[in-house]
């Protein structure tokens, strides 16, 4: 196997593609990814590739065989805790990203302690109740923090209806808003990845200061 590039080499390559100012901001940033399934595992990989300084990875679940069709795990990782499995995959892709992992279910009680140090919190759960719990807890207790949520990426419809919407000054929702996995429409990797990409890009744009402050 080839040796991996040095930290400086990876930094230089990031600067070539993303620009020095953006890379400096991304390297200084921390993002909490809440839920490491089809959304979260793809979001974490996107952000690690983009040169995020630190990721906080939170999930209570282990890799299941039914996750492999859309989540960024490998067949041999079935049964492993998701934070551990994803960390290992991220380190292969982006060896210098700092990772903090929590193998725990998020609740109203532990949400703020787990996410307070992040510049951006990303909601990437699968259950609607859990999404609402996280969003309400952050907006009520830490309203100045950037929060990006995902809702509506199930099924096989055209991905063009997946959008990013600014709901509050610091709160964004990505997705088509309506496609519910509980309607028996299934989930397919590219559509979930489209929503994950919206969430990850919103985090990048917020960190790089590319979204105007004005608005609601």
């Amino acid at each position, binding site marked *: 196997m080839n040796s991996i590039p040095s930290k400086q080499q990876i930094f230089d390559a990031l600067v070539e593609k993303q620009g020095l100012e953006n890379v400096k901001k991304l390297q200084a940033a921390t993002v909490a990814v809440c839920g490491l399934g089809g*959304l979260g595992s793809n979001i974490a990989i996107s952000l690690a590739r983009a040169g995020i300084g630190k990721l906080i990875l939170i999930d209570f679940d282990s890799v299941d065989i039914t996750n492999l069709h859309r989540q960024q795990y490998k067949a041999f990782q079935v049964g492993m805790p998701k934070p551990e499995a994803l960390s290992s995959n991220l380190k292969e892709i982006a060896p210098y990203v700092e990772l903090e992992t929590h193998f725990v279910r998020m609740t109203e009680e532990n949400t703020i302690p787990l996410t307070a140090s992040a510049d951006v919190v990303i909601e990437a759960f699968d259950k609607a*109740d859990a999404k609402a719990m996280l969003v309400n807890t952050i907006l*009520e207790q830490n309203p100045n923090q950037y929060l990006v*949520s995902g809702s509506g990426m*199930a099924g096989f419809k055209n991905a063009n209806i997946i959008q990013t919407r600014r*709901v*509050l000054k610091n709160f964004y929702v990505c997705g088509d808003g309506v496609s*519910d996995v*509980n309607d028996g429409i299934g989930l397919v990797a590219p559509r979930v990845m489209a929503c994950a990409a919206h969430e990850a890009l919103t985090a990048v744009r917020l960190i790089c200061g590319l979204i105007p402050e004005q608005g609601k």
Partner: protein
Amino acid sequence: MIKVNGIDIDIGGKSFVGKSIADYLASTNYDCKRIAVEKNGDIVPKAKYAETLLAEGDALEVVSFVGGG
């Protein structure tokens, strides 16, 4: 006029002026465990749905989450 997600809800002679957010939600199909509500640009804490009264000109945004991720 009170707007929810950009749509006037005071129609057909019925008005929600003076009613609470909980009253409004009870008249809809929203599942309270799966929503976040903002009023005029600020989040409404879940514990305050019953005591937050609607006034003429209020704009609510109800984000209703669906499953999948």
